[in-house]
């Protein structure tokens, strides 16, 4: 009788006969620990230590005037200060508002690209889209911010062009930087590749035959899309949107350089607390609020992806 491997290794692994030796290799858990040790050193020891000390710091008391800048106590005042101050609640609201708008734009722009990439028969077309999206995904965030400064500035490309063709006149150049428009455009540019790559990963799973079946049964392309493709791509849409939203609420460089003082997001205030005031406890408390919100979003995202797997999509 053949000996089966007692370990499940994912659906694609065929069951097969194995030698005793390789079974033994797989069953020694301490080997796994050995292999993981360098990764665990960085992520379990240092990273967990860091998050833990951040948590502890968020309960310390900050005193700008004292000899010691921090009192090592246990107070909730940093959290209370954030959650009780309309100014910071406005920041939080602003962060969510910008993230929501950016996610919606990314979805509307990203879905057609991903759908076309998954369905096109042209290999060349697919390759061009893939490389464009992939390279944009990797281009430095600061380079992209800089490019939008050139384009959206008062004497930037867009304003010059509009003056040239006479849509606006010289005195009424549009203010596109240093306000919410700059932030939204910049963030959309940075997060669109994330949306496309996530959508493509999930949309690949929808077999073209279901669409063909719908069309064979008399639906036209628009009907097929609305009644078949769109419902089937809902998991992709939620996965992509949650990822983009999560990344958008923690954005830092874009609101700092493209947005104005009133469009700053929570990350900017965390940095200010650290840099301008050396108020580590308050920065830590804000960090934990942001971390908490991110974790909720990540958990929802994991839930969504799991449902997709269970549904066999």
């Amino acid at each position, binding site marked *: 009788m053949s000996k089966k491997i007692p370990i499940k290794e*994912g659906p694609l692994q065929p069951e*097969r006969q194995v030698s005793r*030796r390789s079974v033994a290799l*797989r069953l020694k858990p301490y*080997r*796994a620990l050995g*292999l*993981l040790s*360098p*990764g665990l050193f*960085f*992520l379990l020891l*240092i*990273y967990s*230590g*860091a998050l*833990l000390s*951040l948590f502890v710091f968020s309960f310390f008391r900050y005193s700008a005037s004292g000899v010691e800048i921090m009192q090592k106590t246990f107070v909730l005042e940093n959290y209370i200060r954030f959650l009780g101050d309309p100014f910071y609640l406005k920041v939080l609201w602003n962060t969510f508002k910008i993230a929501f708008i950016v996610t919606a734009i990314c979805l509307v*722009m990203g879905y057609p*690209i991903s*759908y076309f990439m998954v369905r096109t028969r042209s290999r060349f077309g697919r390759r061009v*889209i893939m*490389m464009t999206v992939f*390279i*944009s995904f990797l*281009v*430095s*965030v*600061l*380079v*992209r911010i*800089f*490019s939008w*400064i*050139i*384009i959206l*500035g008062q*004497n930037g*490309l867009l304003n010059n062009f509009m003056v040239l063709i006479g849509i606006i006149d010289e005195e009424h150049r549009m203010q596109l930087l240093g306000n919410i428009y700059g932030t939204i455009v910049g963030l959309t540019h940075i997060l*669109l*590749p994330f949306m496309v790559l*996530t959508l493509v*990963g999930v949309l690949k799973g929808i077999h073209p035959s279901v669409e063909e079946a719908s*069309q064979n049964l008399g639906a*036209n*392309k*628009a009907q097929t899309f609305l009644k078949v493709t769109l419902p089937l791509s809902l998991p992709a849409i939620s996965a992509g949107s949650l*990822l983009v939203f*999560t990344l958008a609420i*923690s954005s*830092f*460089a874009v609101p700092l*350089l493209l947005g104005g003082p009133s469009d700053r997001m929570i*990350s900017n205030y965390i*940095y200010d607390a*650290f840099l301008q005031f050396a108020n*580590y406890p308050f920065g*830590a408390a804000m960090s934990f609020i942001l971390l908490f919100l*991110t974790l909720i979003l990540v958990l929802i995202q994991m839930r969504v*992806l799991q449902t997709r797997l269970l549904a066999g999509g």
Partner: protein
Amino acid sequence: MVLRKRSNPKWPTIGVKILVVFGLLFLVFPVLVVIISSFNKAPFFEFPPREFSIHWYLKLLSSYKFIDGFKVSFIIAACVTVISTFSGILAALALVRYNFRGKNALNAYLQSPIILPEVVSGLALLIFLNSIGMFNNLINLIIGHVIWTIPYVIRTVSAVLYRFDRSVEEAAMSLGANSVQTFLKVTFPLLRAGVMAGAMFSFIMSFDNFALSIFLAGPLSQTLPIVLFQHMRYEVDPTIAALSALLVGGLVCLVFLLERFVKIEEFVGID
């Protein structure tokens, strides 16, 4: 039997194509504008450029600020790539090949630095590393970047490992190779694609990192993105365009080089 006549209007297909082209132009256009304007002679931005010149590139190469930033970033990215790739390969092997309690939770935890806000990670690492007495900014930056890039290596290497045919290893072992020999002579060469993709991700992510670095860097370890940021904050001049063009050019070369060895599509399912 009569087939119902299908009414298939052309507009949806054309509409989708227009949206696709618009989306791709939105991604590419700004970067092209930067590259083109880096060759403009005038010290302000005009588009299209009137006179061609490489003046700004020469200015860039004589600016010690940017050269130093490049050196710091390059050293950090090189160290990070080596450490992350090494740790990531081993962690991926453990996560794919072994079964133990809490494996999924551990996997999710090891992937978490990508998704958690960089500013939070930066502040946390700063507080922690300073409170255990580590004030060497260069080492702190390397540690921070390693944590931020290991997940990419784990992902790319796992992607290859899941498709790996174990029977070749078993063949090597039944022919008398021990497990270390099998790994070095059989497993590792087959993992090459994943390792190269992971190493490339690590290098680029470390080289470009800004939000983590700004917490961990000190006055003597200003990485290139930080130098760029500080320059950009106060003046916008074509030197930055020249630097941006060089960075994009380097990136494109790197991606096409990688593409010769690796099918990139296999590694970009980011979810």
